[in-house]
C-alpha cells in the first residue's frame, strides 16, 4: 500500500498550525501563527492577564483552600499549585476546578456560597488561560489504529454484501472504555480475535454467495421467556400469536425441516395444556409452509419430548423471514379466576392451577438443512456481488477482476493499487481452477474479509513527520473517520471519491449534511446515543415478574426504541440539544402509551406524541432511562442520581468507601412496617461517611420516585404515598420530575459540554484528555450561537482539529522518518 502524503504537504507543516488555530475558533481571533500570539502579549495585555490570574487565585484561596490544601487534600485533591502558579501550567487541576464551578458542585452546601458572578468570572479566566495555551501549541492528540468492533463489522458486511450477520457468533466481546466500544487503545489483539475474524470470513463468504454444496446444519432461534406469547410477534403473519419471526439466510435451494420445542411445566407436562386444539404455523416470507398440531397431553417423558417437527419443505436460497407462531383462536380477556401475567413465563407452574387459562409457549425454532440441494438462486447478496457474468470461459478473468476490484475497494475503503488486485486474484485463480468461477469469487471474498485492510483502519503517516509533530489526516482516512462517526460503517463511493474536498471545512460540512440525510445516520442514535445513555444496560434488567408482570421483552424493546427514535428525531430535525431535557413530546406506540398512561395511541407503529401533562419531560421521562437505573425489585434513587451526574453532568460521584453496607443491608421492615425506598435511603444516610456524597446524589433520584422500576407513573411505594421532594445540590428546591428537568435545564452549558465530550470521544475513538477541553469549549461556544442545535455539535466535531489532524506520538517516528 502506498498512500503517502505528497512532499508539498509535509513541507507545509508550519501552515498547518495556523490552520489549526482558525479551525477550532481558537482565540485570539485573527492571529495567524503561534509566534505572533506570543509576541503581541506585551504591556497592557500582560498586565491585564496578570490581574485576572491574581483575581482567580484570590478566589480559589478564599473558597477552596480550607479543604484542598497540601495537608488536608479532601477528595485527594490538593490545589496548592493553582493558588500560586498560572492555571495553564496545571491543566489537569484547572479543568477539574472549572468543571466543579460550572456544575455548581463546589463549594459544597455547608460552605459559604460565593457570588455567582464571581464563580462565572473565575471559571472564565481559567478557561481563557487554558484555551490560549492550547492555541499557542495545539495538541490534536493521537490513537493507535482501530479495528472493526462487532457493530462495525456487522454494518460493514451489510453495506458490502447486503447480508445480515451476527458478529457475536464470531468475535470476542468488545472492551468498553469510558462507555464506548470503539476506543482504539483498549482494542487489544489476540490469537482468539485473529481466529474470530478468520472464522467470520469463511462463514460470511459462504452465506453471501449461497453454497450449492452446503452441508446440512442447524440454526436455532431461542424465544426468551419474557417474550409475550399472547401478542403477535413482529414480522409474523397476521392472525398468529406469540412464537418467533426471524430473518434467516438459506444457504442453498433445497429441502429443509423446521423443528420446534415447547415449554413444559417443572413436572414435564406441556405448559399451557388447559386448551385443546392449538396449532402452530411455520411460514416463510408470510406463506404457510407447515402446520403442527399440538397435543395437550404431550410430555417430557414421551420419546420426542416437547419436540415437534415439520415435513420436509423445499425452500429457495436467500434471506427470508421465517416464523413459527400459534394460530390465534380467540381474542379478548378470558374470564378466569386468576388472570395470568402478560404471558411471560415467569412461572411455568401457574398452568397447573385450576381457573387459569394458559397457552402453550414456544421455546425455540430450529431450521435444519439443506438436503437434496439444487443450487443457489438469486439473493440480494449475490446480486450485489455478481455485477457481471462471464459470457465465455475466456471472459471469466475479466469479469472476476471487475468484481474483485469493486469489492476490494469498498472493503479496503481506499483506491486499490496494482499489487492489491494482483495478490487477491491469486486466490481466484487457485479456487477457480479447481471448482469454477463462483468458487474463485468466494475464495477472494473470504481473503478480503480476513485481510488486515478490512478489519483494521490504518491511517498512514506522511513521510518525514517528526515525533510530537502534527499532521493532517489523509483524505481517504478522513472519509473513513467521518463514515464511522456518522454511520458506524465504511464510507460510500461518493464520500471516497470526494475525499479531496475534505481538506476544507466547507467540504466536510457539505458531506456531513449529505450523510445525515442517509438512513445510515440512524447510527447517531443506535451507536452513539445508545452507548452514551447506556441503553445496553436495559438488557441486564429483569424486573421482578410478580411485582412488574407487565414488563416483557416487547415492552423492553419499546422502551429502547422510544429513546432511539427521540434522539434520531433531534438529529434529523436539527433540534436544540436542550430538548434532551425539556422536550414535551416523545415517541410511543400503543403498548408504551398505555404503559405511560397516555391514551389515544393505537397500533404498533411509533409516532410523535405530545405529553398531556408535565409529569414527563425529555430523557428523564423515558422509561428506558428509569428502568436501566433500577434494581429488579425496587427503584434506586442512588443509581438514578448517579446516572444523571455521570451521563448528563459529566461529574461522576466519588465511589463509596469499601466498608459501607449497601441499601440491601439496611432493614426493609421497621416495627412491622415495610419502608419505602426513601425511608430506607434515609436510614442509610444516617451514616456520616455516606452523607457527604449521598445528599448530592440522592435528591436527584428521589425527584424521580414517581416513576417505578419500569418507568410507569406511581403515587405509592410500598403502600405509602411517594414523596419526591428534595433539594438539588445547588439549593434549588425539587418537588418532582418536572422541577428536576427544569433545574438541570438551567445548567445548560454543562449538559452541552458533556454531550460534546462524549460525541468527540466517540468520533475520535479515544478518551479525552485535559488538552482536548479547549476544543470541546470552542464547539460548545459555536453551538451556543446556533441555539445548541444538534448539527452544530456534529459539525463542530467533524471539523475540529483533533478529528482532522493527528500527532505522531513523542518518542515514536514514522517509518519514513525512521529510515
Amino acid at each position, binding site marked *: *500500500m502506498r498512500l503517502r502524503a505528497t512532499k508539498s504537504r509535509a513541507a507545509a507543516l508550519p501552515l498547518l498550525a495556523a490552520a489549526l488555530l482558525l479551525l477550532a475558533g481558537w482565540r485570539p481571533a485573527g492571529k495567524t501563527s503561534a509566534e505572533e500570539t506570543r509576541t503581541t502579549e506585551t504591556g497592557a495585555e500582560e498586565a491585564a492577564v496578570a490581574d485576572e490570574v491574581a483575581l482567580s487565585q484570590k478566589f480559589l484561596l478564599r473558597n477552596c483552600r480550607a479543604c484542598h490544601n497540601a495537608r488536608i487534600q479532601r477528595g485527594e485533591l490538593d490545589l496548592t499549585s493553582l493558588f500560586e502558579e498560572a492555571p495553564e501550567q496545571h491543566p489537569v487541576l484547572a479543568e477539574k476546578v472549572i468543571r466543579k464551578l460550572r456544575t455548581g458542585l463546589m463549594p459544597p452546601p455547608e460552605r459559604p456560597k460565593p457570588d455567582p458572578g464571581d464563580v462565572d468570572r473565575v471559571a472564565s479566566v481559567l478557561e481563557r488561560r487554558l484555551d490560549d495555551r492550547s492555541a499557542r501549541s495545539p495538541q490534536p492528540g493521537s490513537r493507535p489504529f482501530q479495528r472493526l468492533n462487532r457493530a462495525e463489522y456487522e454494518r460493514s458486511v451489510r453495506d458490502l454484501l447486503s447480508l445480515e450477520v451476527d458478529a457475536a457468533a464470531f468475535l470476542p466481546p468488545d472492551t468498553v472504555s469510558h462507555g464506548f466500544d470503539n476506543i482504539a487503545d483498549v482494542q487489544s489483539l489476540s490469537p482468539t480475535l485473529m481466529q*474470530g475474524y478468520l472464522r467470520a470470513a469463511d462463514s460470511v463468504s459462504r452465506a453471501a454467495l449461497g453454497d450449492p454444496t452446503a452441508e446440512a446444519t442447524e440454526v436455532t432461534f431461542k424465544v426468551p421467556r419474557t417474550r409475550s406469547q399472547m401478542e403477535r410477534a413482529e414480522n409474523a403473519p397476521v392472525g398468529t400469536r406469540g412464537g418467533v419471526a426471524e430473518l434467516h439466510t438459506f444457504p442453498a435451494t433445497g429441502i429443509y425441516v423446521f423443528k420446534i420445542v415447547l415449554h413444559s411445566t417443572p413436572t414435564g407436562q406441556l405448559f399451557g395444556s388447559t386448551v385443546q386444539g392449538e396449532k402452530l404455523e411455520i411460514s416463510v416470507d408470510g406463506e404457510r409452509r407447515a402446520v403442527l398440531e399440538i397435543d395437550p397431553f404431550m410430555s417430557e417423558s414421551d420419546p420426542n419430548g416437547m419436540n415437534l417437527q415439520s415435513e420436509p419443505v423445499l425452500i429457495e436460497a436467500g434471506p427470508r423471514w421465517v416464523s413459527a407462531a400459534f394460530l390465534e383462536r380467540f381474542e379478548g380477556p378470558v374470564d378466569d379466576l386468576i388472570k395470568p401475567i402478560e404471558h411471560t413465563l415467569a412461572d411455568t407452574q401457574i398452568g397447573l392451577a385450576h381457573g387459569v387459562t394458559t397457552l402453550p409457549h414456544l421455546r425455540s425454532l430450529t431450521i435444519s438443512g439443506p438436503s437434496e440441494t439444487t443450487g443457489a438462486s438469486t439473493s440480494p447478496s449475490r446480486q450485489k456481488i455478481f455485477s457481471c457474468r462471464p459470457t465465455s470461459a475466456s471472459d471469466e478473468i475479466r469479469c472476476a477482476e471487475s468484481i474483485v476490484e469493486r469489492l476490494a475497494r469498498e472493503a479496503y475503503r481506499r483506491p486499490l493499487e496494482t499489487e492489491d488486485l494482483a495478490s487477491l486474484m491469486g486466490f481466484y485463480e487457485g479456487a477457480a481452477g479447481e471448482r469454477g468461477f463462483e468458487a474463485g469469487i468466494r475464495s477472494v471474498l473470504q481473503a478480503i474479509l480476513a485481510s488486515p485492510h478490512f478489519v483494521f483502519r490504518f491511517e498512514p503517516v506522511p513521510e518525514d513527520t517528526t515525533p510530537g509533530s502534527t499532521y493532517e489526516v489523509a483524505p481517504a482516512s478522513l472519509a473513513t473517520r467521518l463514515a464511522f462517526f456518522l454511520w458506524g460503517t465504511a464510507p460510500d463511493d461518493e464520500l471516497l471519491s470526494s475525499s479531496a474536498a475534505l481538506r476544507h471545512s466547507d467540504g466536510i460540512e457539505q458531506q456531513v449534511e449529505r450523510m445525515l440525510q442517509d438512513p445510515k445516520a440512524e447510527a447517531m442514535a443506535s451507536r452513539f446515543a445508545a452507548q452514551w445513555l447506556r441503553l445496553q444496560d436495559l438488557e441486564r434488567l429483569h424486573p421482578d415478574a410478580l411485582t412488574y408482570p407487565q414488563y416483557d421483552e416487547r415492552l423492553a424493546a419499546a422502551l429502547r426504541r422510544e429513546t432511539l427514535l427521540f434522539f434520531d428525531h433531534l438529529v434529523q430535525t436539527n433540534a436544540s440539544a436542550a430538548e434532551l431535557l425539556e422536550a414535551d413530546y416523545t415517541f410511543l406506540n400503543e403498548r408504551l402509551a398505555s404503559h405511560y398512561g397516555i391514551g389515544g395511541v393505537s397500533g404498533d407503529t411509533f409516532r410523535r406524541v405530545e405529553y398531556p401533562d408535565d409529569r414527563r419531560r425529555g430523557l428523564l421521562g423515558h422509561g428506558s432511562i428509569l428502568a436501566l437505573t433500577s434494581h429488579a425489585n425496587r427503584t434506586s434513587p442512588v443509581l438514578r442520581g448517579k446516572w444523571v451526574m455521570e451521563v448528563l453532568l459529566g461529574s461522576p460521584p466519588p465511589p463509596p468507601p469499601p466498608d459501607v453496607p449497601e441499601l440491601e443491608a439496611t432493614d426493609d421492615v421497621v416495627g412491622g412496617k415495610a419502608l419505602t425506598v426513601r425511608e430506607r435511603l434515609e436510614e442509610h444516610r444516617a451514616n456520616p461517611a455516606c452523607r457527604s456524597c449521598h445528599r448530592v446524589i440522592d435528591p436527584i433520584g428521589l425527584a424521580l420516585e414517581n416513576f417505578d422500576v419500569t418507568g410507569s407513573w406511581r403515587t405509592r411505594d410500598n403502600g405509602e404515598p411517594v414523596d419526591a421532594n428534595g433539594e438539588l445540590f445547588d439549593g434549588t428546591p425539587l418537588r418532582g420530575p418536572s422541577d428536576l428537568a427544569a433545574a438541570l435545564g438551567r445548567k445548560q452549558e454543562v449538559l452541552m459540554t458533556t454531550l460534546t465530550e462524549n460525541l468527540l470521544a466517540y468520533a475520535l475513538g479515544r478518551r479525552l484528555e485535559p488538552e482536548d477541553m479547549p476544543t470541546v469549549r470552542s464547539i460548545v461556544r459555536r453551538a451556543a450561537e446556533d441555539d445548541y442545535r444538534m448539527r452544530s455539535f456534529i459539525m463542530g466535531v467533524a471539523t475540529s482539529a483533533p478529528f482532522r489532524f493527528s500527532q505522531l506520538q513523542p518518542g515514536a517516528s514514522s517509518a519514513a522518518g525512521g529510515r
Partner: protein
Amino acid sequence: MYLTNRHISRRTVLRGVGATVALPFLEAMRPARAAASALDVAGATDPTRLVCIEMVHGAAGSNEIGAQKNLWAPAAEGSDFDLGPSSLKPLEAYRDALTIVSNTDVRNAEAFTAREVGGDHFRSSATFLTQARPKQTEGSDVEVGISLDQMYAQRFGQDTPIPSMQLCIENVDQSGGCAYGYACVYTDTISWAAKDRPLPMVRDPRVAFDQLFGAGGTAEERSARRRADRSILDWITSEVGRLSADLGSTDRHRLDQYLEHVREVERRIHRIEAHNTSGETRELPEAPIGVPDGFEEHVRLMFDLQALAMASDMTRVFSFKMGRDGSARIYPESGVPLPFHPASHHGGKEDRVDKFAKINEYHVSMLPYFFDRLREIEVGDGNLLDKSLIIYGSPMGDSNLHNHKRCPLIFAGGANGKLQGNQHIKAPDGTPMANAMLSVMHKLGMDDVESFGDSTEPMTIT
C-alpha cells in the same frame, strides 16, 4: 455427558442431521504412551491438565462470624475435617480429591495508594492468577503480571493444537462494570499471556466449540477449510510487510503483535493437522447452539467442553471465570433470592452472612459435575481427574469489607500423583496466596520458578 444427555441436549445442543466430527480421542493414543519408557517422565509426555477457576466476591467464611462458624474453612486441619457447616459441603463425595488451602491472603489486590482505595472489585480478578499488583490505568498501558495458567501453557501447552483456552460466564459489555481508574480488562479476564497482554475470555459455548473443533460438517470439509485459512494467513503475512512502511512506530508495534498472532494461528492449524492424522477416531457430540439461559446450564456446558477438549487432547490448560465483580445476578437455585453483589455486602450480620454462604455453596456445587466428567474419561493408567489439577478460588476474602484476607482457595484432582487429597492445610496468618500458587507451579513441573507475585516461599502441600 451433558452434551449428549438427551433430556438436556434438546435445549442446549444441535441435534439431528448427523453432523458428527471425527477426532482422535485419548484412549486411542494409549498404545503410544504405553510404549514409552516405564520411567516415563509424567511432566514430559503426559503433563498434568490444569484448570483455573475463579469465582468473585470472596466467601462468607472469610468474615469473622463466617470463620467462627466454619462457613468456608473447616475447623480441623489434616484429613479429619468436617465439611458439614462449610460451603464446600457439595464436595464431600470428592473429599479424596480435595485439598483445601485456607487462610492465605491476596495482598496485591489491596489498595497501596489513596487513589486505589475502594477499587477492589476492579482489580481483584487481574490479581487472582498473577498475584501481582495491577497498574491503575484506563488506557492501553495495562500491566499486572503473567498468569499461572499462561506460564504453564507456554511451557507445557505447546504440544496440543491449542495451548490454552479462556472461558467465562458473565457478559462484559455492560456499563459501570469497571471504575476507579481501572481498565475494564482487569475485570474481564484472569489470563495474562504477559504482564501487558490480557487474553479475552469466550462466553459463547458455540464459539468455544468451533475454536476447538473447527466449523464444517465433515472431517474432509474441516480439513479443506483449514487449508484455505492457511493460505490466507500466508498472504496476510506478506500484506503486513507492505503496510508497515506507512505507519507510525506505535502502529507498527501493534502490527508486529498482530503478526505474532497470525503465526500462532498458523501453528495451531498445523498442530490440528498433525493431530488428526494420528490415532483412531471417535465421534464428537454436536455443537451447542449458543449461550444457554440459566447459570447452571451454562456452567455445565462449559465444563462439558473442557472435559471434551481434554479428552480429545485439543488443549490441556483452561482458565474459567465463573463470575464478574459487581454482578447483581440472582441465583434462584441457591435458595437465596438476593442479587450476588448486594448479598456479598452482608454487613457482618449473622443471618445475612449465612445467606451469602448459601450462594457460595451453590457456586461450589457446580464442581462435582465437572469432576464426574473428568473421572469418566480413562487415560492410560488412570482417569483425567487423577491427571488434573483444578484450582478454584477467589482473590477477595471478606467481600463486605472488600478485603483480601483468608481468601477461598481449594485444589482438586490428583495432579498426576502430586496431590494426595483429603487434606485441609491452614496457612499461618499472613501467608500470601502466591506461596500456595508457587507450590502448585512446582507440582506442575515448573520447579525452577523461584518466586511468583508476592510469594515469600513455597508452601508445603502434599
